[in-house]
Every structure is written in structure tokens, then in C-alpha cells.
């Protein structure tokens, strides 16, 4: 298939999946789940097809690959198009999202049935819509297209967040949508139109489009607007939607609020820094330094908050807020190591964090526990789950044998290259905090003594589908530790970075 046909397929597949899932309905639920799995598999295949020409097979030759010309779908405004294109960072994001969608679908089947959730058809349909939006974001050829799909993602995940339909879920849904739409309409859209009126184009261009056109003041204002406007990146003080979104069923928290949605946010930030500002121009923007410290503060504060959270999902959510700021920091450092390290952290953190959420969901389904303090001694009843939790924690912290080591390594090198030693210290301190809030959970589960009998008896591992998903993503963490280079080389193909 040609690249254009594949691009259309990548966008159309999840959407078709959503419609078919709705058509199947609750009565044919096995067929419905089959539709989800088949769609996810086909999507993964399509993304791999797109990836094939770029995949660095020959490690010796640094070939520069000609990127596809944008495929224009509509032109609602002269010069502003809805267009798709293939680009290394987007490919990586699409690959992560589509691969983990397949795994999460497996997990969701076990979880939703094991937990006896209502309205499962709606759940799977909107899940597919969210992936559709994520694919659109990944393959957007310009910032306008990206914004369109970004908004669809906010709206499409709302029914998933409020899935429970309770008063608490509604309240959380309001916070979720309020912050995400508020920031995107209030800041992001303004920055978008402003950029367009300055540069006359919104196309992602190697080296950026603002250089030489925006005054230092305008560039600073734009950078601030973009970074806070992309609320999905979770920069404080606009991070509250993420903990609020934790009322959603665990598969949603796992795929969307550890991978697709939050990564869409930092992905957008990276794209803006690389292709709208460009490394050279970005490093001259006056506001950049202040924003780096905002990111650093977010990184530390979120870690400290995570430390104090007893609810496991809340702790993981704040951990995510903290890890997202690593990527923002990488983007703001405005050097090649930072961009590549940030991009790589999207991948590494995705595998680590989705595993942790899977484990949290498995514990909820099997042992009905949500609080960290209740999980002592649980490791003996759920050794696979807790073992996976341990390995994934190591990856998040940045220790072997987890892939997180490499992205944090590159980010640390990037701070050194930029001469920002305070930020280096922040990164190291944060890693220590990661240890403090993550590792005690599996350690106490294995070696701690159960407070009551319930953790020992009667509790067994989660359903097979869940367990399979956990094992796959944990294996992914380890595999990324052993073979990180292909992803790094893919990222180094990003246009305009040396």
C-alpha cells in the first residue's frame, strides 16, 4: 500500500472499529471484543508498514530518509489544511499507542468482565475514538491538524472518565474537561492563531517556522501560551485533571492517562519545540529558562505529592505528572540530546507506567484493594503482578533492567550539555524520590506482614487476560533496556536537529 493509503487507514481503522463496536452492542459481546482486537491488530500492522521504510536496519549507514509529502484531507481556511504526514517522532508515538492499545484491549476484556462494569459497549467504542484521535495527533502534518485531534481526544475521553456515572465521576469529569478545554481554548488556540498570523504557516517544518519572524516578546508569550495551553502535558498548575481522571476504569487510566492522552500532550510540546520554534530559535527565547524551572518545580512537587498519596492510582497519577515534566524539560533544553531523550522517555515511560496501572487494576480486581497501606503481604498471593510492579518501578526510576535508564541518561546528558547543573541535580533528586514512592510498594508486598488475613487467603492472581497483558508490557520494559538503540536512531531522524 502507498503511504497515503496507509495514513488514511491508520486514521480510519479506529473510527471504523468504534462504529462496529457500537453495531455489535452488548448482546454480541464476544464479537464486539473480537472487533476491538482485530482493529487493534490491523492498526498495529498499518503503523508498522509506515515504519518499515524508516526503521534503521543497517546500523552503519546514517541514511537520511525522505519524508512523505503531506496528504491534504481538507482545507477549511486558505493555507490552513487538515493534513497527515509521516514523521519519526509521530511514528514512535503511534507505534507506542497502537501496540499498547492491543495489549490494553486484552487487559480490558479481563478487567471489565472481572469487575462487572456497566455500559461496556460505550466503553470500547470511545476507547477506539480516543485511539483515532491519538493517531490523528501522531500523524498531523501541521499544528492545526494536531489541534483538531487534540480537542477530539479531550472530548472523546470524557465518557470514559465519567464511565461510572456517579456524582464523584461527574465532578471529576467537570474538572477534567474544564481544565483541558479551558487551557486549549484559552491558550493553545490563541497561540495557534497568533503563530499563524506571524509565520503565515502552521506546517511542521525542520528548523521551525518562527525563527526570524517573531519578536523576542512574541516568542516568549507564544512559548508560555503553548506550554500551559497544552494542558495534557500536565505542567503545574494545570495538572489537576490527571488525578481527577483516575475515577475512570483502570484500562482507561492505563492506556489513556499513562500513554495516549498524556503522551499526546508532551508529544505536542516536543513537536512545537522542534518543528515550530526549532532548536536554534528556541534557545534564544527569553521565557525558556523560566519555563524550565516551572517544569523542574512540577517534577519535584508532583513527586513529593505522590509520596504522600496512599491511594495507589492517585500516587501513580502524580508520578505521571512528574515524569511528563522530564519530557517537557528535555524539549526546553533545546538541544538534540534533550529532544531525543524526551522522545525516548515517551516510549520508556509508557511501558513502565502502563504496567504499573495494569498491576493496580489487577490488584483491584483480584484483591479489591486500592490503598497502598493495605497491600502488605500481597506479593505472596499475587507474585506475578507484584514482580511486574517491581520491574516496572525500576524502569520508571531509571534503574536496570528497565528501559527508563536510557531516556533519563540522555536527559541528564542534555542538561550537562546545556550547562544547567541545577536541573541535573533536580533530575537526580527526583530519581531518589521515585525510589521512595514506588519501591516500598512491591517490597512491602513481598516482605511485609499482612495486617489482616484477607491478603493471604482467598486472593489469587487476576484473570488470565489481565495477567497476559502485564507480562507483555513488563517484557517490553526489559526489552527496551536491552535494545534501546533502534528507537533512539529513529528519533535522531527528526528534522532540524543535529
Amino acid at each position, binding site marked *: 500500500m502507498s503511504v497515503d493509503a496507509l495514513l488514511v487507514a491508520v486514521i480510519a481503522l479506529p473510527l471504523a472499529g468504534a462504529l462496529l463496536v457500537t453495531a455489535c452492542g452488548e448482546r454480541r459481546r464476544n464479537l464486539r471484543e473480537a472487533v476491538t482486537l482485530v482493529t487493534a491488530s490491523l492498526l498495529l500492522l498499518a503503523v508498522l508498514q509506515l515504519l518499515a521504510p524508516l526503521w534503521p536496519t543497517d546500523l552503519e549507514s546514517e541514511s537520511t530518509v525522505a519524508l512523505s509529502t503531506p496528504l491534504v484531507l481538507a482545507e477549511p*481556511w486558505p493555507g*490552513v489544511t*487538515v493534513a497527515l504526514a509521516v514523521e519519526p517522532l509521530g511514528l514512535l508515538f503511534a507505534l507506542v499507542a497502537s501496540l499498547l492499545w492491543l495489549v490494553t484491549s486484552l487487559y480490558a476484556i479481563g478487567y471489565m468482565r472481572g469487575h462487572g462494569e456497566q455500559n461496556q459497549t460505550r466503553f470500547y467504542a470511545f476507547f477506539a475514538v480516543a485511539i483515532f484521535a491519538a493517531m490523528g495527533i501522531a500523524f498531523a502534518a501541521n499544528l492545526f491538524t494536531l489541534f*483538531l485531534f487534540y480537542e477530539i481526544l479531550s472530548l472523546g475521553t470524557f465518557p470514559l472518565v465519567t464511565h461510572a456515572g456517579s456524582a464523584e465521576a*461527574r465532578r471529576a469529569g467537570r474538572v477534567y474537561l474544564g481544565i483541558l478545554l479551558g487551557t486549549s*481554548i*484559552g491558550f493553545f488556540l490563541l497561540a495557534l492563531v*497568533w503563530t499563524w498570523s506571524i509565520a503565515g504557516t502552521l506546517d511542521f517544518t525542520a528548523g521551525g517556522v518562527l525563527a526570524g519572524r517573531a519578536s523576542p516578546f512574541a516568542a516568549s508569550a507564544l512559548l508560555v501560551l503553548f506550554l500551559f495551553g497544552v494542558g495534557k502535558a500536565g505542567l503545574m498548575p494545570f495538572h489537576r485533571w490527571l488525578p481527577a481522571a483516575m475515577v475512570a476504569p483502570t484500562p482507561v487510566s492505563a492506556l489513556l492517562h499513562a500513554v495516549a492522552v498524556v503522551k499526546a500532550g508532551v508529544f505536542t510540546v516536543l513537536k512545537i519545540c522542534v518543528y515550530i520554534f526549532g532548536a536554534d530559535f528556541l534557545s534564544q527565547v527569553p521565557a525558556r529558562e523560566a519555563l524550565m524551572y516551572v517544569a523542574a518545580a512540577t517534577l519535584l512537587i508532583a513527586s513529593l505529592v505522590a509520596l504522600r498519596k496512599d491511594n495507589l492510582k492517585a500516587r501513580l497519577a502524580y508520578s505521571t505528572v512528574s515524569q511528563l515534566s522530564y519530557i517537557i524539560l528535555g524539549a526546553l533544553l533545546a538541544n538534540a540530546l534533550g529532544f531525543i531523550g524526551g522522545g525516548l522517555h515517551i516510549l520508556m515511560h509508557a511501558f513502565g507506567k502502563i504496567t504499573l496501572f495494569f498491576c493496580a487494576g489487577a490488584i483491584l480486581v483480584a484483591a479489591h484493594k486500592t490503598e497502598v497501606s493495605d497491600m502488605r503481604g500481597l506479593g505472596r498471593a499475587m507474585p506475578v503482578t507484584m514482580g511486574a510492579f517491581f520491574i516496572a518501578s525500576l524502569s520508571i526510576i531509571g534503574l536496570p533492567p528497565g528501559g527508563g535508564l536510557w531516556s533519563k541518561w540522555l536527559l541528564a546528558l542534555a542538561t550537562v550539555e546545556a550547562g544547567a547543573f541545577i536541573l541535573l541535580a533536580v533530575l537526580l533528586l527526583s530519581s531518589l524520590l521515585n525510589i521512595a514512592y514506588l519501591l516500598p510498594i512491591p517490597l512491602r508486598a513481598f516482605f511485609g506482614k499482612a495486617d489482616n488475613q484477607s491478603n493471604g487467603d482467598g486472593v489469587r492472581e487476576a484473570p488470565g487476560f489481565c495477567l497476559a497483558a502485564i507480562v507483555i508490557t513488563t517484557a517490553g520494559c526489559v526489552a527496551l533496556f536491552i535494545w534501546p538503540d533502534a528507537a533512539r536512531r529513529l528519533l535522531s531522524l527528526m528534522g532540524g536537529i543535529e
Partner: protein
Amino acid sequence: MTLAHLPALQVVAPLLAAPLCALLRAPLAAYLLTCAVAAVAAATAGWLLFTVTAGGAAVITYALGGWAAPWGIEYRVDALGAFVLVIVTGVNLVAVWFGRASVMREVPRERVFLFYTGWLLCLTGMLGIAVSGDVFNVFVFLEIASLASYFLVSMGRDRRALSAAFRYLLLGTVGATFILIAVGLLYQMTGTLNMADLAARLPPLKESRTLQVAFAFLSVGVGLKAAVFPLHFWLPGAYTFAPNMVTVFLAGTSTKVSVYILLRFFFSVIGTDISFDALKLHWFLLPLALAGIFTASIAAIYQNDVKRLLAFSSVAQVGYMILGIALASAAGLSAALVHLFNHALMKSALFFTVACMVFRVGNSKLTDLAGLAKRMPLTAAALVVSGLSLIGFPFTAGFISKWALLAAALQSHGWWLALLVLASSLLAVVYMWRVVEALYCAPRAPATVQSQAMTVTEAPLPLLAGAWLLAAGNVAFGLSTELSRGVAERAALLLFGGAP
């Protein structure tokens, strides 16, 4: 050539059909006649628009009865006029063709023919305004449209419709009188009523006090008709208590036509030199627009009746159009015109879906619509799509409006105005979200409280089709903007005298 008579046909068809409709008396016959006229009007408007944009002639003039212009009555259609004609006839077509069930439910059977007679007269007036080439005829047609719409509003089932119609009548008459005074003053100064003539004779009178007085009367008069803040007090009541299809029709057309009059007078007749450079019109309009946008949006948030909520939203949306005009640039004007088009589309779609709900539930209180999405999923989905358009969500017509307005605001006033526009659109998110949340997420109230909302079913097919047609239009015009933006830009350039 017969095609040359198109501008006349545009007005004559509904005008002749109105008495015929009154004579027919049978509800079905009246309905069919109105349908036929709606189709003819829409086709004529489409043809006119095609002719002035793609067909070579930039302006079509038509001397009524063969009496040449400054003496005879001249009909004159340019890109702007044809644009408004298409909007009015388009909304009219959908409301007439698909709205029958709603009309039959709300209007007593023996008065249906009167309803359609009033409707046709209202249509005549609005179309007449857009084709008219002289200012006195604009006034006459405006009065035809207004009197007919007072009548239509008063046919609402709720008795409060009468007082709403009366208030509308009082304020509307004040507005009309002011316009008439202004027209009189213009005539006294120049001795002509023809727009082209006036445009040629007014510039030397730039310093004249009389012109300034006429200008002031005109602004207030048209402002009343267009519901420009703070002259909007008639609108929420009229929209809330009118029969639902009348609300659809008026919300999509009446304020738009009034904004058209505003543009015609300020730009074509008086000219930008006088309106903006000499009399600083934009200094008044900009604060009024902003105040209107914010006040009305905030008022909308606190409404408990969906129709009233949407009515306040309309006042706010008129504010956006005025804001576009107040930017005093071609980009701003074209943004205002794009929004004129898109707002007609989104607001008629919203009121149409509400009409579907009222058809089943009986009223439009938020509490009574709670949880209705389960019962009327398709209607509710149409409301969500149109609501997204109102908010300015990507892929919808509303987004195009917002984009145009933001770009124009950034161009002429910088980021602070753009930020205000965006902040106000967040208010739209809040009030639309209240409706959506009520429909989808509201807990089921005790059965005694809302017996109806829980037992109703989906609206009848024609109503549903109308709602979805309009909702789909919101998406279509969010993706392809050749008709909305393309023509708006052309018209804006025309009003700015060909200057880029």
C-alpha cells in the same frame, strides 16, 4: 430574458403566496404552498449568489416596473445581499419542510393557515430587505418582516408569548421609527433614497450635524432590531415563548438581516470614510460588543430554560458579529460575515433540536430534560454536535468563525482582544455544557417529577431529519468553507470599496 427577473421573483413569490395561503385555509394546502415557495426562494437565492460570485456580474440591478433608478424602485443584489438571501432561504427551507409536526402540535388547527400566511410575509420582508436598492424600501420591508414576526411570536402556546410579543412590538416599533427618522433626514439632506445615489452625495456632507443625527438614529434603530447589547431586551422573551419553529426561523434569520441593514447603511450608504474615520463608529461598537458578549454569556449560564439560554447566547453571538465590524478592517468584516452565516446555521440547528425535545417532553426546562439522552439519543447527539459548533470546536462551522475572528482581532488589536474573545468562548463552554450534562449525566429524578422525560421516545422522523440536516451542515461548513468564508471575504472586500 426571464432570468433577469430573478431579484423580483425572490420577493414576489412569497408576497403573492401569502394572501393565497390566507384564502386556501386548509392546513395541508397552506403547508404545501409554503413548502413550494420555500423551494422557489432557495433556488432563486442560490442562482443569484451563483450569478454574482461566479457568473460574471458583480451586481445585479433590476428596475421595478421598468422605472430607472433614482426615480423608480431599484432592486440591487451584490455578493453581500445574495449571501444573506442564501442564509435566510436556507434556514427557511429546513424549518418549513421539516418542521410541520412541531407547527401542527403548537398552533391550533384552525389557525395554521394564518400561521403560514404570517410566515410567508415575514419571509417576504426579510428577502425584500436583502434585495432592496433604496433605503425607504428597506424600511418598508423591515416593517413587513417585523409585524409578521410579532404576530408569529404571539402564536406561542404559553400565554406569556403575548406579553413577549407585545414587548417585542414596542421595542421593534421604536427601532423602526428611529430608522424612519434617519431615512427622512437622509432624504432631506440629499433628495434621494437610492443607496447608490446616497453613497455619491453623502461624502461632501461629512461635517453636517444632520448627518450625525441621522447616523445616531440609525445606529440605535438598527441596534434595537439586531438585538445589539444593551438594546436586546426583547429577544430572550420573544425567542423563548414563540412557537418552536418560529424560534428556529427567527434565530437563524432576523438578527442576521438586521446586521445586514447595519452593514448596508454604515458601509455602502454612508461609507467607511464617514462611519469609521469621521464618526469613529468602532469606538462605540467595540466596548458594546465586548460588554454584550460577556453579559449575555454570563446571563446564559444562569438560565434554567434551554430556549432562554440559547436566546441569551444569541445576544452574545450578535456581539461577536458587532466585534468583527468594530475591528474596522476587511478581515474583521469578513469574520463578522462568516459568523453571520455560521451562527445562523448553529443556532437554527440548536433550536431545531430543542424543538424536537419540546415536541416530546412539552417544555424546555433543563430539569425536565434531565437524562433525556437515553430516551432521545439521536436528537441529543444532534444537539451535542451543534453545541460543539457554538463553542467553536474544531471540525465545526463555529471553529471557522472563531478562527476568522481571532485572526482579525490579532491583526488589528493584538493579543489582548484575542484573549478576551477566547475567554468569552469559555463561557459558551460552560453554558452549553450545562445542557449537555443535563441531557447525559443528570441522575434520574423521582418518577413523579419527570414522568414525561422518562417515557418519551425519539422525535418523529421529519423533525429528526431537519435537526440532523442542520447539525450535519455545521460539520460540513467546518470542513469546506468555500460558501461561508469565500463569499464573506468577497462581500467584505466589496464593502470596503475594493481595497484589500
